[in-house]
């Protein structure tokens, strides 16, 4: 049974991961390269860089961002990492976590998938972003890298805890106080994330990028992650509905390519 759940989660992860890989290939790779160039490179580029230094983009491909690997490697590995990222999230959240938590996630059918996606987004991205802003290109940061990794991990734990708490609170209050109250209180319990966010050391960021580009990058990053989770949930809900249609026997007997083989 767990194997069937895991398979569905990983399948959803592959679909979402491939799309996220495409997003990296066509949006993030060129955008990050350009922003790096702007952030680390010559600051002589003025506001009219689009017209005046048009050849600048083509000219200095690999010179910027003192990297130990070539641009091609970075682009390729980043795309592969994006696909793996989708598979990891799909397998862990929609495979393993969904298997264990299915009885207590509110709602039925597809709603459960989308709720789980929201919880996953809060855990993996939303909560850490409260402490460390998602956009850090070409930025000088106050905190050292190790501490920031620890903060990121810590906020992931806090995010997971708060999401579980919200689910628990909802389950408790639904029977006694009705659905609307339970929903509101569960939402409020998400606000507990403000406490660790306020207590954590402040990561002062000094960005050298133009503010329009910086906010555009932030939007792209948030949009990318939201899209990833939406795709995960959508694919997962669809796969789940299909397995329901073929009958619960298909889940129980670990189907091999959909054929209902009687073992």
């Amino acid at each position, binding site marked *: 049974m767990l194997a069937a759940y895991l398979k569905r989660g990983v399948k959803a992860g592959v679909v979402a991961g491939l799309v*996220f890989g495409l997003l*990296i290939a066509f*949006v993030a790779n060129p955008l990050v390269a350009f922003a790096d160039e702007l952030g680390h490179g010559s600051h002589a580029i003025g506001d009219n860089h689009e017209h005046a230094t048009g050849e600048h983009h083509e000219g200095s491909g690999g010179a910027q961002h003192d990297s130990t690997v070539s641009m091609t*490697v970075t682009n390729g590995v*980043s795309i592969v990492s994006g696909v793996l990222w989708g598979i*990891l999230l799909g397998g*862990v959240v929609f495979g393993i976590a969904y298997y264990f938590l299915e009885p207590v996630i509110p709602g039925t059918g597809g709603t459960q998938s989308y709720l789980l996606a929201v919880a996953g987004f809060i855990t993996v*991205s939303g909560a850490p972003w409260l402490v460390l802003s998602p956009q850090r290109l070409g930025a000088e940061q106050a905190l050292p890298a190790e501490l920031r990794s620890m903060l990121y991990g810590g906020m992931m734990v806090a995010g997971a805890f708060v999401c579980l708490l919200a689910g628990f609170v909802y389950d408790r209050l639904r029977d006694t106080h009705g659905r609307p109250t339970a929903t509101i209180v569960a939402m409020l319990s998400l606000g507990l994330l403000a406490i660790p966010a306020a207590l954590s050391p402040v990561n002062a960021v000094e960005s050298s990028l133009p503010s329009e580009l910086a906010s555009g990058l932030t939007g792209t*990053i948030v949009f*990318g992650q939201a899209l990833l989770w939406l795709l995960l949930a959508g694919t997962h809900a669809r796969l789940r509905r299909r397995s329901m249609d073929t009958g619960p026997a298909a889940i129980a007997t670990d189907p091999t390519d959909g054929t209902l083989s009687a073992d």
Partner: protein
Amino acid sequence: MPTANNTVHGRVEQARVELTPTQLAVGLALVAALGFALLFVQDPMLHDSMHNFRHAAGITCH
């Protein structure tokens, strides 16, 4: 059989019956390795290779 145990506790129990400790260990190791590599490794070589991905995913970077 699949819908009989509709509690979290039931699911945990069933997983305990279905999985061998080896499977569990291998699964956990895989997830931990992949997650750690994607999120936290600061080794220059790996880090620079995944530079664009980490920025795209908003994961803490250099």
